[in-house]
């Protein structure tokens, strides 16, 4: 499978929070494909050592195909992507993106949508808001952030009136998840986007309150964490690929010209699933089931690594 790439020009850059910048991207030629709320794109950045590819949620109006907007939070331990976007990218620059894909679409059968955003996790919900308002859907947006770092879009979100609930932890305003999830009626779906502890907290509280799993939706994009270097032996091509501590297995394979289909680059979508022939895997993805992980026959190279110093892959 090959992913088409679209050449875009950076049309505008705007700081929307102390650590978050918003980029408007427009096609170099023609328009851009329409997308559904919750979609993301991959942005390819020409880094110094290697090409960096990061997935970002689209936060513009899905009906607007003249341009896409993404919001990028500067990560303290940036692997290069967010730093590149914040320090190197200028208005007028060209970048390459993939067409939108969506693993986090609203469930339109829902009677009420309960959106829970943590920090820059607000981004997919910005695209939701356009569509929810257009469809006159019932919703509440609960926005947990740190005013000194990530409180993006607050002015715009205030306009939602009683549908908006802001919690600025720098101002000692916290969200009581138990209260948030109690006394909800059938047909209420909850969506979470934000840091892992928030996702886990909401999921755990909801399950304790008896929420069925199919009413709980989350997007846990996580950039690959660094790890110990290891060697990947490719059984079919005979190649050997050294994986550095600060790059993912997928990035190392791409560096060596080995193509693996991929979409989210964050351990969520399952596209890059690769057969493991030999070696132990340290699973870090959110896609494989516990049983599949235990069997050790499959790896998501976008985030997972070798548990030892080598892996043999069916590539």
């Amino acid at each position, binding site marked *: 499978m090959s992913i088409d790439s679209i050449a875009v020009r950076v049309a505008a850059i705007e700081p929307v929070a102390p650590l978050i910048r918003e980029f408007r991207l427009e096609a170099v030629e023609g328009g851009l494909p329409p997308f559904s709320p919750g979609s993301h794109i991959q942005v390819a950045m020409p880094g110094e050592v290697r090409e960096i590819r990061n997935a970002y949620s689209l936060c513009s109006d899905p009906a607007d195909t003249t341009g896409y907007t993404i919001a990028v939070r500067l990560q303290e331990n940036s692997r290069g992507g967010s730093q590149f976007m914040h320090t190197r990218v200028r208005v007028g620059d060209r970048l390459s993106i993939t067409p939108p894909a969506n693993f986090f679409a609203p469930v339109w059968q829902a009677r009420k949508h309960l959106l829970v955003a943590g920090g820059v996790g607000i981004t997919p919900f910005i695209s939701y808001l356009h569509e929810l308002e257009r469809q006159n859907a019932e919703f509440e947006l609960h926005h947990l952030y740190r005013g000194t770092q990530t409180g993006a879009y607050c002015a715009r979100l205030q306009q939602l009136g009683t549908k908006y609930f802001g919690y600025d932890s720098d101002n000692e305003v916290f969200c009581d998840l138990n209260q948030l999830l109690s006394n909800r009626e059938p*047909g209420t779906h909850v969506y979470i986007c934000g840091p892992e502890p928030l996702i886990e907290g909401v999921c755990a509280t909801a399950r304790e309150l008896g929420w069925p799993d199919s009413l709980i939706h989350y997007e846990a994009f996580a950039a690959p964490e660094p790890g110990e270097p290891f060697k990947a032996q490719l059984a079919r091509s005979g190649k050997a690929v050294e994986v550095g501590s600060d790059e993912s297995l997928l990035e190392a394979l791409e560096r060596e010209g080995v193509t693996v289909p991929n979409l989210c680059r964050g351990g969520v979508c399952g596209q890059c699933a690769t057969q493991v022939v030999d070696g132990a895997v340290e699973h870090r993805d959110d896609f494989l089931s516990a049983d599949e992980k235990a069997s050790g026959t499959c790896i998501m190279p976008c985030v997972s690594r070798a548990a030892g110093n080598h892996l043999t892959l069916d590539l």
Partner: protein
Amino acid sequence: MQIDPSIKSRPKYQVPVLVGSARLQLFICEPAARDQLMSLHQQCEPEQTYWLEVGDPVACDSAAESCTFEGLAACLQRRLAGAPVATRLYVAGSEAFLWDVRNQALAAGLVDEQIQLAPPVSRARRLFCTHCYTRMEGVETSPHRCSGCGRLLLVRDHFARLHGAYVGVQINAEDPNEQPEQEVLQ
């Protein structure tokens, strides 16, 4: 790899099990299937459980309307309107009844994960004629003469959840005089 010979759309049923984390346990049955749910109902905390039975005036809010499916459906909608999100629904009865209740519950905002359908009390099928859209109840043999258009219908295993019915297609479209042998549906 083993290829499953059964048709994918044909539902598979399992004996319901109580979901302990639920805040409202809702039981709905036809009289003939009462025994399939009663023991589960009796295990629940009295204030967290509710029993609805077709034709049982005591179990419904309104004695008069409970005797029909429409009355039961109205009662179910009222119950679900103020129900917690942690509601679980257990349904037992004929196959068509199971799916009618399930569709009512979906309309009230429930998802399939919240609904358990017990194995149907009989093999009788609701049949949907793909030619004239007539629905027939209690079909036990195939082919079956359509009560709407008179065509002789092959009763397929293909199941439509929206109708709670199996699909019927004319068995002798090439030669309407042909009368294939009738067999009992499994």
